[in-house]
């Protein structure tokens, strides 16, 4: 299966669903409109990323964090998003924490102690690993 390395499009089905749920029942969305919104969403991601990155650089950081994204929203005049985003983030963080703890509990029930130790370390490094992966990608990929 040929993989396009840079598919910058978002899945049509998901975009369509989001639009449908936002609009009143029964409103038709032309294919052209749907496609346009999808493209707009991709552009939004790029714009938001660029903006957030500026905040990260100002803070002399190489990693984009939550605060950078929220600052970007304000900068882009989407202040209305900030409150719901903060709320969602709280839920997300709790969810992630719950998952981590569930994994740790599961590990405690496994056989050897050694396995537990190595897996626990992995879990702790989960968030870190993402960043490390990013850096590795940068080294390998040709631009």
């Amino acid at each position: 299966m040929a993989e396009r390395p840079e598919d910058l499009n978002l899945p049509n089905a998901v975009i369509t669903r989001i639009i449908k749920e936002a609009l009143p029942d029964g409103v038709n969305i032309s294919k052209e409109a749907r496609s346009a919104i999808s493209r707009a969403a991709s552009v939004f991601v790029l714009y938001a990323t660029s903006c957030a990155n500026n905040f990260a650089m100002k803070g002399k950081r190489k990693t984009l964090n939550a605060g950078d994204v929220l600052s970007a929203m304000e900068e882009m005049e989407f202040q209305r998003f900030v409150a719901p985003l903060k709320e969602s983030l709280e839920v997300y963080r709790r969810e992630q924490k719950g998952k981590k703890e569930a994994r740790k509990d599961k590990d405690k029930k496994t056989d050897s102690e050694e396995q537990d130790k190595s897996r626990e370390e992995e879990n702790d490094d989960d968030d870190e690993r993402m960043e490390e992966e990013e850096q590795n990608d940068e080294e390998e990929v040709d631009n």
Partner: protein
Amino acid sequence: RGKMAARLSGGENRLVSLPLSRIRVIMKSSPEVSSINQDALFLTAKATELFVQYLATYSYKHGRGKEKNALTYSDLSHTAEECETFQFLADILPKKILASKYLKMLEKEKRDGEVGEGDEDEEEDEAVEDIR
């Protein structure tokens, strides 16, 4: 509290619908970006969903498509042009004009170039209206 539980359980009420992996691909296509922390990735995905909702509802509310119970490309294009918040989309959501009008525009430009100041003969060449 029931709502939140539903959101966490997946399906239509999950916390975020857009795939984080795809969002990450788009973010990483920016050359200046080094790393993205997990929370930032989640927030970007969620913000994009909010953006889609906002663009759709705003365009529907202010557009003429709703006269026929529809959201049209024209509504979106109109939003990009009229609303400052969405102006960053103006280039990718250009207004459309009839081909015949476009040809007239080209002809007029050419005539203006040849004569100098431009003829005021063809007064019918008003500012181009987009088709709706």
